């Protein structure tokens, strides 16, 4: 065992609204010590902790906006989101589903609560991550992977103590369902009470987790409560997670790209000039068109 220790546990910040449909705690990049360079290639994490949205005839959400230079990954835990983009992709993601959108050279999209969910109201819980793209892929063609929960490859723990959903990367020879442009591990770790699982990632990978539900103990040393974020040191490789009570953990580990980051609003590139170009291209309609 070469234990990977905790560097810091970060409590959720005050939530803010993205559009009117996502009430999120931002961890990356505004959390203490969770800036883009430190968390590379994970450059944003917004977490909508369980929140009740009352019924509404007009679906809440975020209207048309652009992205360039990275991928957005939306992981649904409760509630349903409908998505449309300028490449003609659309879909609904519900509990347990994942949407992996590669904005790359540029895309317009909009995200709203799904109509029926919106009409009936209900608890909403989701995470959205931005995964940075290596410089050489930033201007490649956009891509869309709508992944239902049934399609996600899973590793069953012994004695029905839980399941590891391998969204991306690899866990004990179970390959992740989503394809990625750089080494990224992204797992939903679902543990029953007393369920435990071991993980191993290269020391240099930036590794972190979010306790989405329940309470866990890490490496037998520290208990971490719901809605808290854990950043691991870039030393050691092995992590043990044990559920003190039934838990869901979003576990992330990725090879840092170690490339310069220039970020403004919905664009993440390598230089200021590329950001200015992105703004110009967006204003001139080079991202295409999407009806509001």
């Amino acid at each position, binding site marked *: 065992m070469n234990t990977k220790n905790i560097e810091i546990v970060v409590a959720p910040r005050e939530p803010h609204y993205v559009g009117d449909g996502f009430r999120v705690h931002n961890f990356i990049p505004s959390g203490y010590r969770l800036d883009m360079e430190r968390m590379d290639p994970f450059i944003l994490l917004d977490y909508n902790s369980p929140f009740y949205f009352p019924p509404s005839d007009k679906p809440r959400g975020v209207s048309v906006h652009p992205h360039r230079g990275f991928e957005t990954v939306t992981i649904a835990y409760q509630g349903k989101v409908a998505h449309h983009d300028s490449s003609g992709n659309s879909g609904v993601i519900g509990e347990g589903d994942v949407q992996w959108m590669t904005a790359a*050279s540029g895309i317009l999209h909009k995200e709203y609560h799904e109509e029926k969910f919106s009409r009936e109201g209900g608890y909403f819980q989701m995470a959205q991550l931005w995964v940075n793209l290596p410089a050489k892929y930033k201007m490649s063609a956009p891509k869309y992977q709508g992944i239902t929960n049934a399609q996600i490859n899973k590793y069953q723990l012994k004695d029905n103590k839980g399941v590891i959903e391998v969204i991306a990367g690899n866990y004990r020879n179970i390959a992740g369902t989503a394809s990625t442009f750089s080494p990224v591990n992204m797992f939903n770790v679902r543990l029953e009470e007393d369920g435990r699982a071991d993980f191993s990632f290269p020391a240099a990978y930036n590794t972190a987790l979010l306790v989405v539900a329940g309470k866990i103990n890490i490496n037998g040393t520290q208990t971490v409560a719901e809605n808290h974020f854990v950043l691991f040191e870039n030393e050691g490789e092995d992590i043990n997670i044990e559920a003190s009570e039934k838990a869901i953990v979003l576990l992330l580990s990725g090879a840092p790209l170690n490339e310069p980051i220039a970020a403004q609003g919905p664009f993440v590139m390598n230089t200021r000039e590329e950001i*200015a170009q992105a*703004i110009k291209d*967006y204003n001139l*309609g080079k991202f295409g068109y999407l009806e509001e």
Partner: protein
Amino acid sequence: MQNFTKYLKTKANIPEPEFQLLIKKVEFRNIEKGEVLLRPGEVCRHSFFVESGLLRSYTVDDSGKEHIIQFGSENWIVSDRSSTFFNEPSDLFIDAIEDTKVVLISSDFINEASEISSSFRNYNQIALQNHIRHQQKRINLLLSTNAERRYMNFIKLYPDLTLRVPQWMIASYLGITPESLSRVRKELAHKNFKPN
């Protein structure tokens, strides 16, 4: 106040000793999104230098419709100069579209700065001429050009505002309907979008 310091030192070219005197005479304020800095009927006592964030000035017509006169993002100055100069009630609202840090510049400050620094006096003169030029161009654009030309001019003047303000505000600034703005953007996309 990094931007305001840069504005006084670099743009207005004020030497360090004068700068130390002048900087004491301005007031800094944090304005929350939605907070109103000026209302019609009030005399505008300050120019607002935007350190960070975004202000707008606008009027509201008899039917309640808003007409945006100016946006002011980082390094812009938003004000009603004529209300200040002639000491008359303003027609304008000035409010914050984002949480904004502003520097309040009073007439006294302008007068004192002009007295102690000739470079500031010159700079203020140029700023005033620039303001008039900008207003003239804007009147001409509103009277004589179509929606596309207005939009093209807008994205040159305010490149990142399309990402920061809702469509209806841009349409209001351009004097067109939101539908016309959508049409212009759709036509541009049709012309310029090349899928890779």
